């Protein structure tokens, strides 16, 4: 039988985009790198790139964190607060327990547990109690901020030098942050292949359908939030390494950036479509836009506006291109 198939005339680029929705973002990233290098050749130096990665590694992690909930069609407005909380917990513990190697590691471990706990709370509130994610995680973000202020009432308290010198230093002549990136890449490759990733995406596609198919939807969403908490905690460790101190408010502004990064990376906030690689690229795009705006010589009072416009345009372009080609 010859039937009229809607799929017959799909172009290969559309097919590629379906699998790799971050292609437009990658293109934007390349353009930004070139422009940065054009306006400030130094910005492509080894040192500058190391700096860029150190600065935005936390945002990359946070964007990854956000991706795991967005995949399932949820959102987490508390990632920034979680990051802050983990940051102060780690700092306070390192101060209490002294700066010895073992103790530092133990503090980091407790920090990660804290992040997991925050993720679990969000998951329970959103998936088990079935509150609306946007408002519920906003409420938990207020709660987590309160806890962070309780743990460390005022920003400060230096991290042990051993900690941040390691983070900012080199191993085998290669900056530590690049090792982190490599480890992260490995972790992500593993995560992409997990059953959970596929289940999160299926839930994001059609939660009711997934439930009726026999998937443990609530448990899957909770796991997504826990994974989100994990990466928010890792982001906090990066921030702690880069800032060498505790700040109960440090992550506040990063929440919305993490959402923007996820969208820039080609994920759909409605769920079912998303890649961590895209979010990572999205975070770098935000970083490069910020530096480009300066290197181009934008007068200071215009910097915020130009950044805002550039990010808005990148967001619109990404969504638009993704949808156009995807159709």
């Amino acid at each position, binding site marked *: 039988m010859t039937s009229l198939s809607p799929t017959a005339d799909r172009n290969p680029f559309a097919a590629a985009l379906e699998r790799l929705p971050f292609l437009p973002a990658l293109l934007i990233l390349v353009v930004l790198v070139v422009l940065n290098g054009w306006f400030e050749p130094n910005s492509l130096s080894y040192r500058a790139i190391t700096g860029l990665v150190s600065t935005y590694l936390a945002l990359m992690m946070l964007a990854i964190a956000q991706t795991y909930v967005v995949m399932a069609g949820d959102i987490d*407005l508390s990632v920034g607060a979680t990051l802050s909380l983990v940051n102060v917990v780690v700092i306070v513990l390192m101060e209490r327990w002294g700066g010895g190697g073992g103790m530092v590691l133990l503090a980091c471990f407790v920090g990660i547990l804290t992040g997991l706990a925050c993720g679990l709370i969000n998951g329970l*509130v959103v998936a088990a*109690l*079935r*509150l*609306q994610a*946007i*408002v*519920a995680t*906003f*409420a*938990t*973000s*207020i*709660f*987590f*901020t*309160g*806890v*962070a*202020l*309780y743990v460390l*009432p005022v920003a400060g308290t230096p991290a042990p030098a051993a900690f941040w010198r390691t983070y900012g230093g080199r191993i085998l002549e290669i900056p530590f942050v690049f090792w982190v990136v490599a480890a992260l890449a490995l972790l992500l490759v593993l995560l992409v292949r997990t059953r959970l990733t596929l289940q999160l995406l299926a839930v994001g596609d059609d*939660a*009711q359908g997934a*439930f009726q198919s026999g998937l443990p*939807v*609530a448990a899957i969403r909770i796991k997504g939030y826990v994974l989100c908490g994990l990466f928010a905690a890792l982001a906090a460790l990066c921030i702690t390494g880069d800032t060498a101190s505790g700040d109960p408010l440090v992550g506040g502004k990063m929440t*919305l950036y993490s*959402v*923007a990064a996820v*969208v820039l990376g080609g994920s*759909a*906030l*409605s769920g079912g479509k998303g890649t961590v690689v895209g979010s990572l690229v999205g975070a770098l795009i935000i970083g490069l836009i910020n530096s480009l705006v300066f290197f181009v010589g934008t007068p200071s*009072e*215009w*910097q*915020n*506006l*130009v*950044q*805002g*416009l550039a*990010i*808005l345009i990148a*967001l*619109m372009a990404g*969504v*638009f291109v993704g*949808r156009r080609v995807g159709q």
Partner: protein
Amino acid sequence: MSIDTSAAGVSGNRSGSAVIEFVRKPLVVALVLIVALLALGEALSPGFASLQQILRLSIVAALLGIVAAGQNLVILGGREGIDLSVGGVVSLSAIIAGNLMMGQNGGILPAVLVCLATGALFGLANGLGVTLLRIPPLVMTLGMLGVLQGLLVVIRQGIPSGRAAPALSQFVSQPFLLGLPGIIWLWLAIGLLMAFLLKRTVFGYRVYAIGSNEQAAYMAGVPVRTIRVALFMLSGMFAALAGICLLGYSGSSFANVGETYMLPSIIAVVLGGTPLAGGRGGYTGTMAGAMLLVVLQSILTTINIDESGRQMIFGATLLVLMLFYGRAKAMRG
């Protein structure tokens, strides 16, 4: 059907009993909670529930409530409608209004006109992005918020922050009619207007239609895009109006005054019984939601504990309150 019976579809199991049905209405829940909180406040610190203080709280709630009116409309219109840029518009409007008034009553009218036009303009941009380019509202308005914040910086460097006209300040904080300040009357008028708009105009019917099933609405000849753009424009205009009132409240415009309205305006809508999915709910509940939020915040200000404790209590209380409302349907029907 009244627009307030919206909770019906939200919760999984409905009871047949009319009493329980009534008590489950978000509006009733919010009002009961407001009274309970006022009583608690009075118990904690006598004078908290005095008429005078309730009036003052209502002024603050009105500011939030006016922003939430626009937010409510955008949310009702569905397709994940949400407006994160309201905070930026509030700030921008306060600055523009201050500069057009410069403390002169004669400046009020031009300020109101220019601000409403500005709000509408940004709403138009949001609406066009959402409809023509099909950018998800959260993304579009988040991006617009960034632009507005940048614009504020530019503007504030170029022009001085202005001052409210005395008549405006008076309107916001001094008794105007029957002992109530003008802004309360304004808020009540907006409440009536919204009820009329949503229940008695074809526009209102169409808002619910696109919020509930956009495709079906389109097939029934509803001008989907036009309506959605109009909703964003209204949201911008309500935010601008709130900016003007905020100027009147604080006397002068400054910094990002509006920032603190972004997420609370959404919370007020949710506490008022309009689910973020849209297509259900109404503004009466939202008004109560705004009042509830303000009363809660001010109770926390008056009890003498650390900021950390206040935030923990605030966050936890919000979560508990949300349990009364918009819980998603259980997957298992």
